[in-house]
């Protein structure tokens, strides 16, 4: 039984007809064509689907679209203004913190929130902050370097 949900996505109100079981990640990807948010697992481990819901990093595969009705969601497509890269995106680029790019949107979304919570993290704090985002390509070394660079902390 479908119902309409209205979610403010990247600043714009969007409405879609969804089943109650429609996952937020599928609403974003299929109904709204925002394919930058990715699916990497089915047990809420990998974090590739991370978006911001009400300004908080969440795994959009573990949120029903109906739970986000009336709320604000930001995806990777919504973080750079006017075509400029967000400082975190720039830091990832400058530090070679991505290879295949598949985990990258989720990783960036989490990393930005990590620094909001803890603006000058140690490397250990960065690693723990990213414990919910899996990457197979980079070995995390350059991701940690990118987040450190974005924080301005010098080692």
């Amino acid at each position: 039984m479908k119902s309409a949900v209205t979610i403010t996505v990247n600043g714009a109100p969007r409405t879609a007809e969804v089943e109650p079981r429609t996952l937020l990640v599928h609403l974003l990807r299929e109904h709204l064509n925002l394919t930058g948010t990715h699916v990497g697992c089915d047990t809420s481990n990998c974090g590739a689907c991370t978006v911001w819901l009400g300004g908080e990093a969440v795994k959009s595969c573990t949120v029903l679209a109906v739970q986000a009705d009336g709320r604000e969601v930001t995806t990777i497509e919504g973080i750079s203004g006017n075509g400029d890269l967000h400082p975190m995106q720039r830091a990832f680029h400058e530090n070679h913190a991505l290879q295949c790019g598949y985990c990258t949107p989720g990783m960036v979304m989490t990393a930005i929130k990590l620094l909001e919570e803890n603006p000058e993290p140690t490397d250990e704090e960065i690693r723990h902050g990213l414990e919910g985002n899996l990457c197979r390509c980079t070995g995390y070394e350059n991701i940690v370097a990118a987040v450190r660079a974005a924080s301005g902390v010098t080692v």
Partner: protein
Amino acid sequence: MIPRAFAYERPTSVADAAGLLRTHGEGARILAGGHSLLPMMKLRLAAPETLIDIGGISSLRGVSDAGSHLVIGALTTHAEVAGSDLVRSGCPILAQAAASVGDMQVRNRGTIGGSLAQADPHGDLPTVLLALDGDVSAEGPDGIRTIAAADLFLGFLTTSLRPDEILTGVRVPKAANGAYVKFNRRAQDWAIVGVAAVVDGSSARIAITGVGAAPVRAEAAERAFSGGNAAEAAEHAAEGLDPPSDSAGSADYRRHLARVLTRRALEEATAG
């Protein structure tokens, strides 16, 4: 990945939610943060006919100071509990345990009420509640009642909440000296074994998760602690335990971890 279809209700009050539970009976489940329920539904290990989403009932969120206790609404997220100044100063073991759940994203959605109602045999929050001798409030058709932690966790994913009751809040005594020590293989994992120790002068309350169908109080260890002997207490931590053996840990290893972590939790709790 994809749950079976279900009907969805979004009540705006606890009374409405309780009424919906009554109406839909056994086929209904309460949805809070959804981070226990939705993963099971996505693997099709659970398929409720109706989800009653209480996430919009804002009266169920928040931490307040009740003098000797803290009162926490059931929908308060782990992130909120971990970050709450009240909790960090008044009952730091609870903040510590909340901060240890899953990962940042999970903590932004998972709730204290959901975690307690789920009663996972590896759960962190139930263990800490047990060690604190806290209690929960439950609202049902007959009104509101209080359930002590010791009476709440009955067995595997089973609490003493009645099918038509909703867990609405948690009450914990303020406790300055407590520590939750959790052991896992990977940072985001459930505990293999976790120990919560709350020390009050020369006595301790110790609860252990991952060693049975539900978290338990380590009563022999508590008795052995009297006077402040962490090492002696730890020796007795596994007494009376009948832990499971599974791919995450054998019964022997779990017993061993119970002893090791009890010692570490007590030492950390008394270090202040």
